[in-house]
């Protein structure tokens, strides 16, 4: 039994030896198998060693290597509990004896590394291993992967016998000595990472390292500042940052390094490279944070002296450019170190902080007197203040005196400076005391900044109120600081908040400057997050008062202070955004106002402006409004607004107002709880069909009906067939009496019904396909639109019919134009998030439609030989493209492009625009395709830049953009021959009537001038 085992084992070992260095995967597999046998007690490790004896003692290096490797590999797969005490000791002895065989060093080390994890590997054996490593191992003689194993051994030993090392100094000394020997001179990044990590553990957890602290530090600091550029195919994915961080952690790991670290790092601060400096400062920061207060007490003076230079000198430059994300900002980082120092000191001992503070203050005080480096000085002091409430009060007890000293005779520049400098301390306040969360009336009175509240408020309000309107900067500054005051928790009392709200509101109303406007708005937004009621009462109230005063008597603009109505409306809109309570309040106020003024026909324009504000309010905020909000809103405004809309001419008779207000009801209905929808549907149909009788005679209010219907749950039961058929009949018979507006409204009703309630079959049956009268075809298109949007099968018959019509000499031309209807987006049939129940619009319907229709049109175009008919196809295709996303059209470009080029020859603006737009947007994706056509494209484009009836502003501008894009996407050899021609022709556009066109022409011709030019530098 056992002999057969041995036999099996023997062949396994031979297999291993045969595969090793040839097929390592296979060898590893065999090793794993053998290990599992040993784990199952079916074999013994000793047997294997015996089996391998001839190889182990062989004079052939290769054989010895393979044999040792075999044992090491088996060990690697063994269960930690398998080997008994005896086995381990035998193995260790085995390795210890072969240790001098440097040719097998890699295999030996690997084996040792594996043994350490065994359960019965004891401290005494670790000592043997360490001693061997210390005495016989020369790192410089071996390649990086071998050295890596030694580091692994050290790490494993350290983790396993950590506790013993702490107890026995002799052992820990042995370990450290071994480690220093191994780590010295290491260069490989992967090994360094490990070396730093071991160093960190040694320093931070072994008790007595003072003997070796210099050596340990040297083994770290000789790498500082570390830079490493990973090779392209780095298997270990080590980045420069990994190394930097590991090194930083190691250096800052033990206060024992204090003497060496601070001195050396401060020396490195003199480096000229910004990145090196940044690394140094960050490491200093880590040291300050980790070494503890005592170390900082001894070192703050040299640290401060080294850092202050950077802070006081370097800031201006780095601040203006340093906002880029990747750039290092040594100013900010240096300030961080100052903050860390202050923090350590105050934690350690208040007196030492006082000393530090006094020193810093004395040095900086001069700057206040001479007005130099004020900003930096304030930043430093604010950093000190921002540590905690104690430091804040200590610092603030001295600052205001300096700042407010000669407040009485200040010019504007000084005032600006003062406000800017104050802002540092406001930030520090927020850092210490936090941001205002709720409108609680707690005042943190025991802080030094509070004592100067009056002065601050006076200064800011003076800057805001008394400086002339041209002084934008100072006003904006004041507004920003007011915002900060609001954010400072426990600083302002309620009356002061009210005062500031008033300031914001008045300034916003009276100024037409953009920056001031946004500053006020930011302020009000910050305020409303906390003091919502106050903002509603005070700010919204004031704004309404302005609206009420002005509007009725004076119409639009003029009032005693001439505040434009649009400004007030815009403010209302922007302040309310995303706050349900404010939105509701504003909508209620505005709709009350609207029903008041919409009686007057001379106020149509004003009505329109209010309507558009109402629409914006609800369309921008419908997602934040909850069901209860909507119910409240409906109760408050629905009846009133609806009555005005149906009766008042300025609303009812005005296309835009009617559209927007109907749309307002669309959103209102959309957000109504679903359970109320059947009732809504009944009420709506009753009103429009029975009272208003919109299906008997054409009415403008049909649009409102469409919008409300569009919002209602499609699952509500409604026998809509009758309505559909009557609508079709009405349009058929009364088309001539209808205005365009009414017609469009009824058409949209047809689309909506075909999409939502009617069965596609019924829709198809009620069409009169044999009629080619314009109205009938138009109805068919609109009905088809509803079906296209729901991806109904019946669509195909409609499309067949339309394509037939395109082929006709008589009807083709106008049919082509109707194709736009099929893809144009209707605002009330959009797919809104979380509202899938209001229509049957499929997400990918345009894609499906395009995939169905475009290939057919293309092939029809190619097979037709009549130029006029071809033009029809082109027209239809361009109009479809106009509303189809680029992604969908992408794959058709090879077939489309030649067509587009022909389409551009048509004398029609819409076609040209959509063709140009398609080309422009596919430029980077299909550049090679476009390059092939560049010879026909460029002459066309050059014709398009000449103004004419068809070459409108948009055509010219698109043509120029395409020309410029060609220089980027088309190979030089295509363009160079045409360069001179293009530049010459572009001079025509340089003289265009419109400035924007001239600008585009300039950019395009510059791009052509530079074609093929030798790059400078």
């Amino acid at each position, binding site marked *: 039994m056992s002999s057969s085992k041995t036999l099996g084992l023997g062949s396994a070992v031979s297999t291993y030896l045969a595969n090793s260095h040839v097929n390592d995967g296979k060898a590893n597999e065999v090793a794993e198998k053998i290990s599992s046998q040993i784990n199952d007690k079916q074999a013994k490790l000793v047997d294997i060693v015996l089996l391998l004896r001839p190889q182990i003692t062989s004079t052939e290096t290769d054989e010895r290597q393979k044999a040792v490797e075999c044992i090491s590999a088996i060990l690697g797969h063994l269960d930690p509990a398998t080997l008994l005490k005896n086995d381990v000791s035998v193995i260790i002895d085995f390795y210890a004896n072969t240790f001098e065989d440097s040719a097998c060093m890699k295999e030996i080390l690997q084996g040792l590394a594996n043994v350490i994890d065994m359960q019965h590997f004891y401290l005494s054996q670790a000592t043997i291993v360490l001693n061997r490593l210390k005495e016989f191992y020369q790192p410089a003689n071996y390649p990086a992967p071998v050295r890596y194993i030694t580091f692994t051994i050290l790490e494993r030993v350290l983790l396993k016998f950590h506790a013993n090392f702490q107890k026995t100094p002799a052992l820990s000394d042995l370990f450290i000595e071994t480690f220093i020997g191994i780590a010295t001179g290491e260069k490989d990044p992967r090994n360094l990472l490990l070396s730093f990590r071991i160093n960190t553990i040694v320093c931070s957890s072994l008790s007595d390292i003072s003997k070796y602290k210099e050596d340990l530090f040297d083994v770290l600091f000789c790498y500082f500042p570390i830079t490493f550029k990973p090779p392209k195919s780095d298997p270990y994915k080590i980045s420069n940052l990994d190394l930097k961080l590991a090194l930083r952690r190691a250096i800052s790991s033990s206060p024992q390094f204090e003497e060496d670290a601070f001195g050396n790092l401060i020396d490195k601060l003199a480096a000229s490279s910004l990145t090196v400096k940044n690394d140094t400062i960050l490491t200093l920061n880590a040291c300050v944070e980790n070494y503890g207060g005592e170390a900082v007490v001894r070192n703050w003076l040299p640290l401060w002296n080294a850092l202050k230079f950077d802070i006081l000198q370097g800031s201006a430059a780095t601040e203006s450019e340093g906002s880029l994300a990747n750039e290092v900002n040594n100013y900010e980082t240096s300030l961080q170190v100052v903050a860390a120092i202050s923090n350590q000191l105050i934690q350690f001992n208040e007196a030492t902080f006082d000393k530090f503070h006094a020193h810093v203050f004395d040095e900086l005080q001069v700057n206040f007197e001479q007005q130099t480096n004020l900003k930096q000085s304030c930043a430093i002091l604010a950093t000190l203040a921002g540590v905690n409430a104690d430091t804040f009060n200590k610092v603030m007890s001295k600052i205001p005196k300096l700042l407010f000293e000669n407040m009485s005779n200040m010019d504007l520049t000084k005032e600006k400076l003062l406000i800017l400098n104050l802002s540092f301390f406001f930030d520090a306040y927020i850092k210490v005391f936090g941001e205002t969360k709720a409108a609680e009336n707690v005042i943190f009175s025991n802080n030094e900044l509070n004592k100067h509240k009056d002065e601050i408020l006076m200064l800011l309000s003076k800057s805001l109120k008394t400086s002339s309107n041209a002084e934008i900067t100072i006003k904006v500054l004041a507004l920003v600081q007011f915002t900060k005051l609001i954010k400072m928790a426990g600083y302002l009392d309620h009356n002061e908040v009210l005062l500031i709200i008033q300031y914001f509101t008045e300034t916003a109303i009276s100024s037409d400057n953009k920056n001031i406007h946004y500053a006020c708005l930011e302020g009000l937004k910050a305020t409303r997050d906390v003091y919502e009621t106050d903002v509603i009462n005070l700010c919204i109230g004031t704004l309404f008062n302005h609206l009420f005063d002005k509007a009725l008597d004076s119409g639009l603009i003029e009032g005693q202070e001439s505040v434009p109505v649009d400004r007030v409306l815009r403010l209302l809109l922007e302040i309310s955004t995303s706050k349900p309570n404010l939105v509701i309040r504003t909508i209620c106020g505005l709709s009350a106002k609207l029903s008041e003024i919409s009686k007057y026909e001379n106020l149509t324009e004003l009505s329109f402006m209010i309507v558009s504000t109402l629409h914006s309010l609800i*369309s921008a905020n419908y997602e934040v409004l909850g069901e209860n909000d909507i119910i409240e809103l409906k109760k408050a405004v629905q009846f009133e607004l609806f009555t005005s809309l149906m009766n008042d001419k300025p609303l009812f008779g005005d296309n835009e107002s009617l559209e927007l207000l109907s*749309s307002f009801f669309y959103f209102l209905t959309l957000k109504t709880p679903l359970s109320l929808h059947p009732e809504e549907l009944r009420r709506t149909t009753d009103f429009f069909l029975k009272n208003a009788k919109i299906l008997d005679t054409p009415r403008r209010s049909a649009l409102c009906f469409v919008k409300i219907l569009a919002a209602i749950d499609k699952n509500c039961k409604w026998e809509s067939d009758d309505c559909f058929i009557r609508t079709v009949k009405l349009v058929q018979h009364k088309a001539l009496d209808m205005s365009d507006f009414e017609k469009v409204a009824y058409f949209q009703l047809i689309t909506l019904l075909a999409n939502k309630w009617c069965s596609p079959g019924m829709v198809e049956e009620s069409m009169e396909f044999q009629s080619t009268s*314009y109205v009938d075809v138009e109805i068919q298109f609109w009905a088809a639109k509803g079906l296209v949007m729901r991806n109904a099968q019946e669509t195909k018959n409609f499309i067949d019919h339309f394509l037939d019509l395109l082929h006709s000499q008589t009807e083709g031309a106008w049919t082509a134009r109707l194709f736009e209807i099929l893809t144009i987006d209707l605002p009330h049939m959009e797919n809104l998030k979380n509202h899938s129940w209001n229509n049957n619009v499929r997400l990918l319907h345009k894609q499906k439609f395009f995939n169905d229709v475009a290939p057919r049109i293309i092939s029809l175009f190619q097979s037709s030989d009549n130029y006029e008919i071809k033009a029809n196809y082109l027209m239809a295709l361009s109009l479809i493209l106009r509303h189809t996303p680029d992604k969908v059209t992408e794959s058709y470009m090879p077939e489309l492009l030649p067509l587009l080029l022909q389409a551009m020859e048509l004398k029609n603006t819409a076609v040209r625009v959509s063709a140009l737009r398609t080309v422009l947007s596919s430029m980077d994706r299909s550049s090679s395709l476009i390059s092939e056509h560049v010879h026909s494209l460029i002459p066309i484009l050059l014709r398009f830049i000449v103004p004419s009836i068809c070459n409108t502003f948009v055509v010219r501008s698109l043509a120029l953009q395409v020309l410029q894009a060609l220089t980027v996407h088309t190979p030089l050899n295509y363009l160079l021959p045409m360069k001179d021609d293009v530049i010459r022709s572009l001079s025509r556009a340089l003289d265009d009537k419109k400035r924007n066109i001239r600008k585009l022409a300039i950019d395009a011709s510059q791009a052509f001038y530079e074609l093929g030019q030798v790059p400078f530098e």
Partner: protein
Amino acid sequence: MSEFINENPDVLEESQLPTRSKDELDVLFENEVQKAGLERKRNLLKIVRSIPSKTFQDVEAMDRLMTIERQNKQVNDLKMKALSLDQKHEEDEEIDPLDPQEIYDLIAHISDPEHPLSLGQLAVVNLADIEVHENDNKTGISEVIVKITPTITHCSLATLLGLGIRVRLDRCLPPRYRKTILLKEGSHQSENQVNKQLNDKERVAAACENDQLLGVVSKMLSTCK
């Protein structure tokens, strides 16, 4: 030379250069909005501020539907071929005249060959020193005069600056403009020679034949906006 005109100029921030107060409603044109109801949309934009807002899109969509309807009716009524009928209201575009600001925008962003700053920032070109004399007869000659102020009176690069500006203007203005580039009176020791050199067509043309020089000029122009 008692006093240099533009010695140690206060370097202006990019944002401090004079700019055309941008008409926010230009976007209307850029977005191919129908001219009908333009006034309406102006008012609307004053309130909602952005083209992508739902409100604006809603009005746009309605407008487009009405346009389709109107066009189609016309086509149908007249039984005409697919001809251009939707352009009527876009024919009469307003004219934006060429003004000093436009010239300034062309040249203010040229970078100085020896600083990382632009000519506008160094106040080498100033809005006040640009004149445009428009000839109403488009076939006649109009004139643009630019006076530059070198930063020091013996600035050896004055000719290079002038050349850069000249190349930029030659490329960007239609040929009917005569471009005259002069040093501002009293701003340079050899004012006359430089002026002569800058406005000598032959010498400018010769300079542009020189690839190396053209490279330098291209680099100066590369910062133009």
